């Protein structure tokens, strides 16, 4: 168990004009930890994720990341080139819609290989081997390596997006509703896959989801958001089995039992 946090979030707020996106969010994330951010639509989950992953600049507050050289860097003060490099190598971002995270008109193999080239890999043979290895890990047949993701089903696209993100061995992965829009049997397969990969690779991950079952299966910790603020947080099974706040009780009691 590492003693220092990978990500330190201190009093982050984001306003859209006078409207609140998220407010006064603070937490630490350690390597190997999976944090789920739950709450209904419009509660500020995605805004917070965007602020953490530098896709949006917070209005106030500081997000610091523990770089591989052992130093903490304030993400807002990082140069654009350095931030892009971080996003391409040490981080992954899995979008709800795979088309936002993939290049739809290049082959599956190239989608995975591109991230490797971004970190300086130039040997075509090595890149192709790594790409095939990752396609296999996400259960995409090797005979599909030269096909474009346009020709893939939704579930396959999502798995390809995950392979593309994980090929550079990132330490932190952001996921925005990774199973949204997939039918349940496809969801189950993806969840099982993500669960295994997170465990095997020791990744830290922040997963935004409105699906409490997804949070239960994948996360160690939960933050519940409402109206832009974190209203309850803690160990995942504690929050779901013994919810304290009125809104969390409402969320938990609203789950449909199968």
């Amino acid at each position, binding site marked *: 168990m590492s003693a220092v946090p990978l990500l330190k979030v201190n009093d982050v707020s984001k306003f859209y004009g006078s409207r609140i996106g998220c407010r006064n969010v603070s937490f630490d994330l350690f390597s190997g930890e999976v944090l789920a951010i739950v709450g209904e639509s419009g509660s500020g989950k995605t805004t917070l994720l965007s602020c953490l992953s530098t896709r949006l600049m917070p209005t106030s507050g500081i997000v610091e990341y523990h770089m591989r050289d052992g130093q903490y860097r304030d993400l807002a003060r990082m140069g654009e080139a350095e931030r892009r490099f971080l996003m391409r190598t040490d981080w992954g971002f899995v979008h709800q819609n795979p088309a936002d995270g993939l290049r739809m008109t290049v082959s599956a193999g190239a989608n995975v290989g591109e991230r490797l080239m971004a970190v300086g890999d130039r040997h075509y043979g090595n890149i192709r081997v790594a790409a095939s290895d990752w396609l296999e890990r996400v259960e995409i047949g090797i005979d599909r390596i030269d096909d474009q993701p346009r020709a893939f089903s939704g579930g396959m696209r999502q798995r390809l997006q995950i392979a593309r993100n994980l090929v550079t061995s990132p330490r932190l992965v952001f996921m925005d509703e990774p199973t949204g829009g997939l039918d349940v049997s496809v969801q*189950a397969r993806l969840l099982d896959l993500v669960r295994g990969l997170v465990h095997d690779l020791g990744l830290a991950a922040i997963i935004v989801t409105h699906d409490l079952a997804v949070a239960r299966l994948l996360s160690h910790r939960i933050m519940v958001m409402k109206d832009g603020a974190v209203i309850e947080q803690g*160990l995942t099974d504690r929050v779901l089995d013994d919810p304290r706040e009125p809104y969390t*009780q409402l969320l938990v009691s609203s789950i449909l039992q199968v």
Partner: protein
Amino acid sequence: MATPLVVSEVAKSFTMHLRDGVRLPVVANVSFSVKSGECVVLGGPSGVGKSSILKMLYGNYGVDEGQILMEHDGKLVNLATAEPRTVLEVRRATLGYVSQFRRVVPRVSALDIVAEPLQARSVALEDARARAAELLAKLNLPKELWSLPPATFSGGEQQRVNIARGFITDHKILLLDEPTASLDAKNRAVVVEMIAEKKAKGTALIGIFHDEEVRDAVADRILDVSAFSPRKVAA
């Protein structure tokens, strides 16, 4: 003798915000300790808070007041206030739990569900699976089920998977929530024998058993949970 678990003045209530904020006291002033090699059985009628106490000990119910001290990795940890990652670390290395019901993970086989806690302790996959197979065989789970996810298993079959998973590690503290409730006599006897083995190895066990025969066979001490009823304290 070592005392790996000490519970001190623990209180718990539920506030039902969806029912106009009704406050339901569950237990108050819960104090007891469990020694290595001892099996303490929580007794008392249904609804008196036995399962709630086990869930607080495991960390999936919050604690309003008091301390739950566990010896973990040479130090004392207060589980009532520990950070989530500390609770998870205690569960990985020190604290095991056999629940009555278990949420099944889609697509994971019974064998791997049982092997997982050992793998989390860095045991090689093949060795963990071999140990899991031994336990499932001992509990008479038909071999053709081992490679299947337990979602479609009968109650007794699922429960044996839970038991094997809980017993596979050498955790110092083991919580048992009615592990024999849906087992036949033959398998009940196997579980009684497995509990005796754990005691001999110095595990501290805390359990709920409604079956009198099993309770008499395993209990060193019966703790009457109705003594912790908050209603009596109020009176």
